[in-house]
């Protein structure tokens, strides 16, 4: 191995889906890229329910059976009184379709980045950003206990929910407790579930200001998890407690072979995702969907746009905020409206009690959703419940 330079065109912090797609895209366009990851194994531990839409995933990568754990046909949504509605995969398809094996998926993406020419360093944690003349010029990092400096024309923070890169560069990424869903999940096995359907359960006693999910993972197993609003989380009522109750009751003979905990931003995207010499992508830019908590595809989309803009900016020799803002503009054009809508629905959803939720699900019982998109389904809900959803009317015309 040759000695590694400590100056790159682009340094990317974090090797999740956002980081790896950014690295792959920029490296393929000829930039000199380094991606660092603080963990010693990319993708592990998992903090995700691993559900993605098939068509959206295929826009980024050819599905590979090595990292697809299961495939579903649709979803069932359960009201607090257990009434349910069924959505076919095309509808819920916005969020489900495949259950991934994220440990392997994240690794496969990092491998693609490496094959495209990016350098990767694991067990390397960013500890600060270098700012000179008002512009970000690189990072300080720790690798195997040794401090080092890595210089780069552009630093890209793909450092997930716990992102510090933005804060260090003067972008306030702090989430309020109400702007995070905090969750726990068990991989439960040896249980009898319908492997063809994802389940979503609503209700204040099950998952206040959130929902519980059951995502089939093949072989008599499923990701059973829930997330609740960070502002309603307290001692004795934490995700882990609520989940234990549900699993003990529903799957008394199930065996738990993995515990996952995590938080997902539900604030809606940052007002500013770039500054001079710096870009934020994925959960670091709070791009996850405020309603569903889904963030894998959003992170990958952001990575692709950011990688393209960063590589162009490098070849033009202009990494100013004004230049890098093109990424933010394109990203907002593609996702801004949808996430704004999601945020509005979420803000209404968290104020609903069990009787509201029952009414909502009853109002659409028996309706055939099999040809509708998620947006169309929400539109039907608003139309059927004008009084309850009055604040959302304008968003669904």
């Amino acid at each position, binding site marked *: 191995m040759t000695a590694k330079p400590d100056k790159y065109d682009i340094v990317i912090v974090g090797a999740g889906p956002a980081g790896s797609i950014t690295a792959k895209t920029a490296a393929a366009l000829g930039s000199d890229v380094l991606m660092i990851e*603080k963990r010693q194994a990319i993708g592990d531990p998992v903090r995700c329910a691993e559900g993605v839409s098939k068509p959206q995933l295929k826009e980024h990568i050819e599905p590979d059976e090595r990292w697809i754990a299961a495939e579903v046909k649709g979803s069932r949504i359960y009201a607090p009184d257990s009434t349910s509605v069924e959505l076919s995969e095309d509808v819920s398809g916005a969020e489900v379709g495949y259950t991934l094996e994220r440990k392997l998926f994240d690794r496969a993406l990092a491998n693609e980045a490496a094959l495209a020419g990016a350098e990767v360093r694991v067990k390397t944690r960013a500890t600060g950003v270098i700012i000179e003349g008002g512009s970000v010029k690189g990072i300080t990092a720790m690798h195997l206990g040794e401090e080092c400096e890595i210089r780069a024309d552009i630093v890209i923070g793909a450092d*997930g*929910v*716990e992102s510090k890169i933005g*804060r260090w560069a003067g972008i306030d990424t702090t989430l309020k*407790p109400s702007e*995070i869903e905090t969750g726990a999940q068990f991989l439960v096995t040896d249980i009898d579930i319908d492997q063809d359907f994802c389940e979503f359960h609503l209700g204040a006693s099950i998952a206040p200001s959130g929902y519980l999910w059951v995502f089939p993972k093949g072989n008599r197993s499923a990701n059973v998890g829930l997330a609740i609003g*960070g502002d309603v989380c307290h001692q004795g009522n934490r995700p882990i407690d609520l989940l234990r109750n549900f699993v003990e009751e529903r799957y008394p003979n199930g065996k738990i072979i993995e515990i*996952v905990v*995590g938080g997902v931003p539900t604030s809606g995207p940052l007002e500013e995702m770039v500054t001079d010499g710096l870009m934020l992508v994925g959960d670091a830019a709070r791009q996850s969907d405020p309603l569903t908590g889904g963030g894998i595809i959003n992170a990958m989309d952001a990575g692709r746009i950011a990688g393209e803009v960063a590589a162009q900016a490098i070849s033009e020799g202009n990494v100013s905020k004004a230049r890098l803002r093109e990424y933010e503009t394109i990203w907002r054009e593609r996702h801004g409206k949808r996430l704004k809508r999601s945020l509005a629905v979420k803000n209404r959803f968290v104020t609903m009690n069990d009787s509201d939720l029952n009414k909502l699900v009853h109002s659409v019982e028996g309706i055939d959703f099999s040809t509708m998109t998620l947006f169309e389904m929400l539109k039907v809900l608003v139309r059927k419940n004008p009084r309850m959803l009055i604040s959302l009317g304008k968003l669904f015309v």
Partner: protein
Amino acid sequence: MIGVNRYKCGYCGACVSVCPIGAVELVETWVEIADDCTECGTCAGVCPIGAIEVLK
């Protein structure tokens, strides 16, 4: 003082994202709290597993 029970923590980073002053750091498999922590307890509030708390 803020205490993190590292035998319980699942190193998910949720606590890091809500600290108003950036005093929490998820190193790799443990959480460190910087000296400028104001003991506001925000981090403890959102922990999914109850691994971080304000110690009296």
